[in-house]
């Protein structure tokens, strides 16, 4: 491990640590961990150049289980710590592991600023719509009426929509995936390939406090009717190609249309353009029930990253200047005292 010979190829096993994984049996986090460990060899990642940074919560234990560098920080602050890591060493591949409470409640401010600055990193937001580690209180993504120890009569506040939040903050890569779905690896690879903040909302099942909250679309039997996996350049169809999304031109909103004999074009189905920000807004805002859940890479349109701008500006500002501390100390108007005036 200690020689500098490049590791030609890693296997998912190389990314496992000797630490005992301490999530509840059946937790969706196991599936995400496996998916990430499968992703790393496929993207040619190097363990020593990879840093996992997390906040607080069940998902934030993640770094202990990855054979990389890892920093389990404090509640909500992972984006801020990650920003310091990346600015100090832009060559590192930084992954932020966070949850709905960590990223959108206590750390909402940092998440917003991370995304608007566009730090080059991946954000995996494990959304289980509940506070697991503190034993089941409702979270900022819990639906209205969620009964928990802190909301025995049901929650009354409107939940946050993570992808809409990320888009609104100026996100340049927005994706959704499901913990146990095979497409998760592909989404993670796309997020990694994107230069800038790759924001991925992962629907993650909390088997203890919020079991099956995503079952209406995540369960296999509901998948066809309620999952719409978008692909750039492909029509937005679901239910085995029998339904699609088209524009309601009068109200300028999306509508579900029937596709007959696979002729999606005739039905007016929209072709997904992952660089179309307006379309992305509509996809992430689709009310589930009336619409399927839009999944996959919903928006991907890179812009220059924060750390590259900082590095460039630092280099520009330093150009032609030699650091001379003695000169710095002596700057401004100075005067020379030759000898103590009153000493004989």
């Amino acid at each position, binding site marked *: *491990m*200690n*020689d*500098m010979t490049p590791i030609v190829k890693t296997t998912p096993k190389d990314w496992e640590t000797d*630490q005992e994984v301490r999530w509840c049996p059946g937790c969706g986090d196991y599936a995400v961990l496996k998916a990430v460990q499968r992703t790393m060899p496929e993207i040619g990642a190097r*363990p*020593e*150049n990879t*840093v996992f*940074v997390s906040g607080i919560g069940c998902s934030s234990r993640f*770094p*202990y289980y990855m*054979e*990389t*560098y*890892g*920093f*389990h*920080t*404090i509640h909500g*602050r992972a984006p*801020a*710590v*990650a*920003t*310091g*890591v*990346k*600015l*100090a*060493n832009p*060559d*590192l591949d930084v992954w932020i592991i966070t949850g709905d409470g960590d990223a959108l409640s206590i750390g909402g*401010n*940092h998440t*917003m*600023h991370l995304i608007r600055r566009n730090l080059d990193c991946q954000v995996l937001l494990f959304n289980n719509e509940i506070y697991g580690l503190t034993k089941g209180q409702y979270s900022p993504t819990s639906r209205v009426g969620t009964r928990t120890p802190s909301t025995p009569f049901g929650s009354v506040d409107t939940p946050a929509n993570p992808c809409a939040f990320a888009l609104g903050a100026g996100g340049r890569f927005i994706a959704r995936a499901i913990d146990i779905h095979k497409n998760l690896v592909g989404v993670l690879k796309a997020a990694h390939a994107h230069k800038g903040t790759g924001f991925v909302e992962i629907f993650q099942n909390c088997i203890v406090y919020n079991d099956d909250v995503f079952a209406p679309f995540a369960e296999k039997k509901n998948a066809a009717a309620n999952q719409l996996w978008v692909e750039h350049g492909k029509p937005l169809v679901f239910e085995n190609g029998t339904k699609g999304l088209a524009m309601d031109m009068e109200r300028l909103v999306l509508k579900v249309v029937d596709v007959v004999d696979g002729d999606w074009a005739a039905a007016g189905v929209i072709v997904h353009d992952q660089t179309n920000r307006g379309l992305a807004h509509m996809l992430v805002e689709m009310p589930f029930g009336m619409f399927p859940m839009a999944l996959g890479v919903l928006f991907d349109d890179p812009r220059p990253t924060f750390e590259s701008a*900082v590095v460039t*500006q630092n280099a520009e*500002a*330093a150009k032609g*200047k*030699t*650091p001379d*501390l*003695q000169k*710095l*100390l*002596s700057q401004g*108007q*100075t*005067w*020379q*005292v*030759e*000898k*103590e*005036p*009153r*000493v004989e």
Partner: protein
Amino acid sequence: MATAAHEVTPQEASAHPTAESVVVRFAGDSGDGMQLTGGQFTLSTALSGNDLATFPDFPAEIRAPQGTLFGVSAFQINFGSTAIETAGDAPDVLIAMNPAALKVNAPALKAGGLIIADEGEFGERNLAKAKYAANPLTDGSLAKWQLLSFNISQLTLDAVKPFGLGNKEALRCKNMWTLGLALWMFDRDRAPIVDWLKTKFAKAPVLAEANIAALNAGHAYGETAELAGPMKQHHIGVAPTAPGLYRTVTGAESISMGLVAGVQLANVPMFFGGYPITPASAILHFLSRLKEYGVTTFQAEDEIAAIASAIGASYAGQLGVTSSSGPGIALKGEAMGLAIMTELPLVIVNSQRGGPSTGLPTKTEQSDLYQAVYGRNGDAPMPVLAARSPSDCFDVAIEAVRIAVQYMTPVMLLTDGYIANAAEPWLVPDMSSYAPFPVEYLEEVPEGGFLPYGRDENLKRPWVKPGTPGLLHRIGGIEKAIGTGNIDYGAENHQKMTEIRRDKVANIAVPDQIVELGETSGKLAIVGWGSTFGPIHQAVRRARARGRDVAHIHIRHIWPMPANLGDLLKGYDTILVPEMNTGQLKTVLRDQFLVDAKPLNKVSGQPFLISEIEAAIDGHLPPEGELLPADNQQLTTDESGHDDGSLRPQAASAQSAEGHSA
């Protein structure tokens, strides 16, 4: 306070302190440019070779309503041919640009002092705003001072007439007219100010010319006008200072340069995460311009992100630095705990201000000592250092960097609003005289295997940069297993890790405490920390000149404290602790050493006056005239002609300077 580089001679120590120094206060509306005027007067004073200290005192509002009492901005400067360590107790000269400035500042003026007022601003409206029932310039209420009033506004308008400025713009030159007059009064050269104006208004030459005309007119007014008695020209002699190159420096500048010097000596790049807050922002501003020194600055979204990003940078192998003021420091508290738990180097600068809560943003206080030493959850020991003056900030900043990297720990550096803003002459240090302390990252698996929480003889754990092959590991805020750093909630492990963290900080090598002035034992010790240095030092010097048995001890290492401090304190009958808080160092001293430290407190947002401390010294000693201890008196007699009790034979003096080893 050039005395940092100057050994006070017996003659100076015994000199009457006011004879060769003058305190001038410029006061006006916050829009009148008083800070600028004061700053330029400071520069010209420094260039003329006087020692000096300044005290900028301005409102929190950027542009408070014109003419109001709360919109008054003042700048005080004390300069002289003797060693100057404070901005002076009571001004000798007050320059009041409007009634509000007069009203707020006149009470501080020395009896018999000189008031120069712009009578052009003493109209009914402004008098009402300043809550004057009658015009004080004419009703005789200023009789205990000397008064000179003339229409500075009109004189300025006349002077800048040729430049065709609007009335408002023309009146903005008032401060330069006033500065011109002050330059004449104290026989100062105008040339550096003229140069500065030309640079400042390079893009608007007409403004430069108008301001220069106002400056010259003010100067000429002093020279030619037939003024009444008090208005005469003074020449203040050159202050004795050690030979070398000097400049003026504020605490914010000095801390910034000290941090840069520190990371150069440590051979590590600096990452500075900051969030705007008064009075700490000046450090962020200064460092933002120093890209060529390997400094990355990051204005974060909040105080928490500022420190969290600095911790991230330290984790990645740079030295993380963050800076704030009281309320911002409170927000950073949890992250400090993370740095303590993960044992990463970090420097946290706290420019203290009046509290609690938002408190007094632009006024000074020393009330964050508890917060610095105790203000975190859990047993969270952290080294704390305190700077005593603007120039001292440089060395204290280097010391903070040294401790942070040599012990892998966050360090808090305490300064305050007074130090941050005040300027003083500074003997530019010779960087080649500082010993480097380069950091060594762990880059290979050491003999016997790699332990992320393995320790050296100082209990320091290794610093490993992500990107290093073979040393992969995970850290975090959860309790660590001894050695491996893996998660460990075990009872015995937590007991031991808590003790290790405590011992690591407790055993940091700090220099022994020295006695700044006086004996290493005796009747009374005045024990201070931070920016009270100046007034304490002068007060103790004056009291000793009167034969009082009093010593001055000033603590830089607040935590851990110097090993000899307890024994040293026990050598005095009485320990008096002047602080700009309600007694925080006093409590720590009592707790650490079981000594009967007595408080002397001031929380008015203003620094201590020398006279306040001198009075307290007398209050804690037997009435004057009572004899000094026999041996001491013997020495005083031996050194006939020197009435300063601090004079001792060379050997005793040297012992005092090196401190009393426990």
